[in-house]
């Protein structure tokens, strides 16, 4: 039994924001604020001056391993996740081999158990080998533990195949996690089609590469009745489209990667590959709209879009470097920065990292509800820390925030009642 004492408890799902204690027995929350009878804790965590909230649920990560262990391993990345207060991870299916069979889904579970962090959920591949032509065995994937299906960044060959895939997913009540990206319009670009790419002569990606793919998928969502979650949206017009679709009554939701809420094309130091991400960093107006979308609930989740890389992957001329940031550990401080800048409230920020992604995945977690798994994050919102090799856990050091001092740090992380991180 564990008691977490005297922290400010913020639990958006249950509308709680007050100072008190959280009571845990075995792997479950048993009570919040009210002390249960005969509660004899073996561990007491003093959380005074800190915030106690549901553990974070990250809708898009890549932990490498499985063919990319030079970049990172489950072992290294679950340490980073634990230090970031993240208790549930969704793994994109573009691993090697691809998560397109139950055997690979089982392998993910096995690696997760071995790493001492069982709550890693694979997103199953929508098509075999992610090649966009033949459907994967989605029902078997679901039975093997996949929480959703998706095609990562890989294109679906044509709209008929996407339609069939969505119909089939809907038949088994599977959620489609969709990355809106028209590869033809993207044209192998590496930067937003805007002032920056024009000045530096970089192959560019227009917003339309995202918005057109998004619009097509929205039409098919209506046609097929498939539940769709749009991941890592990057621009204003995508937010507008999601807003309209929700108003119209479609069962869709959407998230944004944390870096898109802070960085724009103007922040890219010329040819600094740490800023090379897909979708690319866009304009100030896009950033403001994404923030607005979070504030009004159009976008309901924030993800890390964690993509650790080895050094070599980022050493080269900008277009040939691999896209992505190592982003788990900066997730909380960057969310808190949004709060400090009055873009969203603290309660919204926590909901976007826990309650809402749990709803997207229909998980019984993301809340401090008695009977739910004791997934808890305790953090000090005022603690400054520097992003440096001493503090950093991820094997990937590819972050543009390297060397910066950020505010807000996780002090304890509990996963199913087990303390998996302590500062």
């Amino acid at each position, binding site marked *: 039994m564990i008691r977490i004492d005297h922290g400010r408890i913020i639990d958006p799902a249950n509308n709680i924001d007050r100072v008190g204690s959280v009571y845990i027995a075995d792997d479950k929350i048993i009570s919040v604020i009210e002390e249960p009878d005969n509660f004899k804790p073996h561990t007491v965590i003093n959380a005074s001056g800190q915030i106690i909230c549901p553990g974070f649920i990250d809708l898009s990560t890549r932990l490498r391993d499985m063919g990319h262990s030079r970049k990172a391993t489950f072992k290294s990345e679950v340490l980073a996740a634990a230090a970031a207060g993240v208790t549930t991870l969704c793994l994109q299916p573009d691993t090697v081999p691809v998560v397109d069979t139950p055997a690979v889904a089982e392998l993910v579970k096995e690696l997760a158990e071995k790493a001492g962090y069982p709550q890693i959920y694979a997103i199953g591949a929508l098509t075999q080998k992610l090649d966009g032509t033949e459907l994967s065995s989605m029902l078997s994937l679901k039975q093997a533990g996949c929480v959703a299906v998706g095609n990562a960044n890989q294109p679906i060959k044509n709209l008929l195949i996407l339609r069939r895939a969505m119909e089939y997913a809907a038949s088994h009540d599977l959620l489609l996690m969709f990355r809106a990206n028209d590869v033809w319009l993207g044209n192998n670009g590496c930067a937003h*089609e805007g*002032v920056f*790419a024009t000045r*530096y*002569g*970089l192959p*560019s990606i227009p917003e339309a590469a995202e918005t057109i793919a998004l619009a097509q998928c929205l039409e098919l969502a209506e046609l097929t009745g498939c539940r769709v979650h749009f991941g890592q949206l990057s621009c204003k017009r995508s937010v507008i489209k999601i807003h309209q679709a929700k108003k119209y009554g479609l069962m869709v939701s959407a998230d944004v990667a944390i870096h898109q809420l802070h960085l724009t094309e103007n922040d890219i130091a*010329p040819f600094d590959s740490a800023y090379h991400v897909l979708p690319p960093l866009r304009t100030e107006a896009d950033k403001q709209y994404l923030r607005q979308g979070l504030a009004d609930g159009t976008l309901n989740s924030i993800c890390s879009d964690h993509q650790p890389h080895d050094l070599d992957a980022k*050493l080269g*001329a900008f277009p040939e470097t691999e896209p992505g940031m190592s982003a788990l550990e900066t997730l909380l401080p960057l969310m808190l920065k949004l709060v400090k800048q009055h873009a969203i409230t603290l309660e919204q920020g926590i909901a976007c990292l826990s309650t809402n992604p749990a709803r997207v995945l229909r998980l019984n977690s993301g809340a401090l509800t008695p009977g739910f798994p004791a997934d808890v994050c305790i953090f000090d919102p005022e603690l400054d820390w520097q992003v440096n090799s001493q503090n950093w856990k991820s094997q990937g050091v590819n972050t543009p925030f390297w060397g910066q001092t950020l505010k807000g740090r996780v002090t304890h992380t509990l996963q199913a009642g087990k303390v998996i991180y302590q500062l």
Partner: protein
Amino acid sequence: MTNNLQLNAEGKLKHFLSIEGLSKSLLIEILDTAESFASMSEQQVKKVPLLRGKTIVNLFFENSTRTRTTFELAATRLSADVINMNIATSATSKGESLLDTIRNLEAMFVDMFVVRHALSGAAHFIAQQTAPHISVINAGDGQHAHPTQAMLDMFTIRQLKPDFSSLRVAIIGDILHSRVARSEIQALNTLGAAEVRVIAPKTLLPAHVESLGVSVSHNLTAGLKDIDVVMMLRLQKERMSSALLPSESEYFKCFGLTEEKLKIAKPDAIVMHPGPINRGVEIDSKVANGPQSVILKQVSNGIAVRMAIMAMAMQTAPGKSPVTGAVQ
């Protein structure tokens, strides 16, 4: 950021990667220094010992004849030892990374890399990664910059039309893919040209092209009015296969420079082209060979301008005084 990388602690040229971030006075210093080398080319003995004992590597990851040859001649006339490396057919085809190639050459005690690469930012990357005593000259990176070409064009323009502030310059053709265009625009704007106008179909213009400091026209006939300098760009054949243009003949009809169209520009307008020329695609042979063409002058000026930039980057430039008594 860019200018920090290009200049040393005293604010002198260290690497020459892009026109962006360089001051007008530095550009003029390059032109003045080039002036002092230009006369030398016509002398019997064409060498000065400014870079004697220095080793320069021409690192060409992309094919080039003209640029590589003029860099080689420039280095030789400064008495440097020159190694030509055609990497397009060498190390990288064996799977060696860009960085490994650089590290290996560094280990051979070289003093300068002249780099051409198919990807934007390659020269910046090499300048950031290389040993501190090595200078990097960008001989063209992807669609980003070709600053020595821009400087030799500024030099050529200044010889004929010394007052930049009254100049209206038209750049015609594939601006989207052109590193030359980006560098020319930056150089002309830094030197205070009255107007830089780009003329091309929308498919060959980058998004927000006005943000580069240019006016835009999609019509050659209208666009050439009042122009003092006509800069033509080479049209790559692959633009047809990637659906950017319907055909060479249609392109020539709309944007090819003919004698008749040239008449719309000012009567003393000069015609420039960075080469190699596609005769009958972007320019009529009669214009390319005609009295207003300065295309071959551009090529010969390339040597003096590249000598100036190399000498300045190695901190051995003779300054603004002419090179006298230094001839070997």
